[in-house]
């Protein structure tokens, strides 16, 4: 493992994270389209501008600066996609909890309220990239993440919430690693949320809410 770098910006400016799984567009008889999402046990239909703004929140880190995609970036991206009054629509999406803002201040709270659901699988370690693994579809890599983030992602699909997934990762880390920072649950949650934006941007992950139904669910990790 190499110690991951997390931009100090993470602690200054909240990163934008969309919630829900994209089910795509619904076309009506007139040919106009709306967006279709799944969140918890519900499916939601968003008007075109709201869907476009929600999609605009799926954006990776700025590779040059390491800066997270934030509120201003989302408004700009939505406006470029043709959304009028993107600022108001983004505010509404945040109020509806279809978009959250993540920072060091609320990371644990989010980890207790959210499930991180993989929508891509592991490919394997990156050749020459110590401590990095590729995530992708089939055999095609689409994003590279630290092994410590993958360890959480491995469990996030079957655990009740992100906090439990971090717990599972820490249990395993305790056996295999001597890096003490990897045993800190707060660090693991913050690190995962830091990289979640990159995973969400390429549809390798989506964030779901923890619903009462999940709490009595019967997946293999129960």
């Amino acid at each position, binding site marked *: 493992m190499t110690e991951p770098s997390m931009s100090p910006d993470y602690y200054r400016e909240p990163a934008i994270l969309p919630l829900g799984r994209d089910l795509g567009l619904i076309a009506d008889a007139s040919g106009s389209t709306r967006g279709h999402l799944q969140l918890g046990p519900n499916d939601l239909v968003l008007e075109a501008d709201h869907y476009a703004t929600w999609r605009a929140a799926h954006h990776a880190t700025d590779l040059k600066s390491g800066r997270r995609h934030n509120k201003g970036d989302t408004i700009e991206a939505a406006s470029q996609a043709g959304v009028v009054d993107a600022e108001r629509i983004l505010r509404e999406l945040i109020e509806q909890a279809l978009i959250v803002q993540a920072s060091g201040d609320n990371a644990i709270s989010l980890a207790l309220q959210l499930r991180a659901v993989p*929508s891509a699988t592991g490919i*394997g370690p990156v050749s020459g990239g110590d401590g990095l693994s590729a995530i992708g579809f089939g055999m095609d890599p689409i994003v590279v993440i630290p092994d410590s983030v993958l360890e959480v992602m491995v469990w996030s699909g079957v655990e009740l919430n992100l906090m439990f997934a971090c717990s599972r990762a820490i249990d395993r880390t305790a056996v295999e690693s001597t890096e003490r920072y990897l045993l800190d649950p707060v660090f693991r949650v913050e690190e995962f949320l830091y990289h979640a934006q990159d995973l969400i941007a390429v549809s390798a992950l989506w964030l779901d809410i923890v619903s009462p139904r999940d709490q009595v669910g019967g997946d293999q990790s129960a």
Partner: protein
Amino acid sequence: MSDDGNPWVLPLGFPLGVSYPRHKDGRIYESVNLDGDLREIVPASRRAVWRLAHGAWSIDAGNWGRSDVLAAALEDGVDDPEEALDLLISDGFIAQIERSDAAIEKFASEHSVHALLVGYGVGAELAGNRQMLGSIEHGLRFMVDRDVFDFWTWAQLEPDLHSAANVLVNRPAEITGREYRTATDFSRAAISIIQTLIARGALYLLRTSAAVDQSPTVAPEVRI
């Protein structure tokens, strides 16, 4: 020709790819999150058969069974694929399901489905009978029938396939394009749907907690 003597085979677990985490001894292996643990498939013949059990070679044919996977393995030059397949089944990496109602019911009650990829829905350019799945940012997309999309969307919310069948069998035919008489009929059809989705990398299967002897995870104490 009857398929009665050709049981379905389905891979289990969340794939983590080759050689993760790294082995100090340099062995190549597949790592799979299965039954609440990270497990490895090391021998080359078993790795090859496990990959073939995902059926990507069989997208057009679909509905593959044991003999089809073995034939594909022989064609690929895999050593003793029958032994490899039997070991993968006994180790829990592959489920083998006889084509009887009782076997289907048992399988359905012991396994849960987990969707991968995202939906494209129905674009204006598409006819209404099919929907798209894929990855928007990477140009990966493929069309599936409405019943497959409906299953991909909703089955993962249920704790096991048996529960999913009992819920989804009642979905309106005008949405799914299909009608089933019973939940068992649905589960039988669902195996073909699952194969279609697994072959496209759009789904994986896990055993349920009822089928796995496993103690619960305890959340860590957090001091803020």
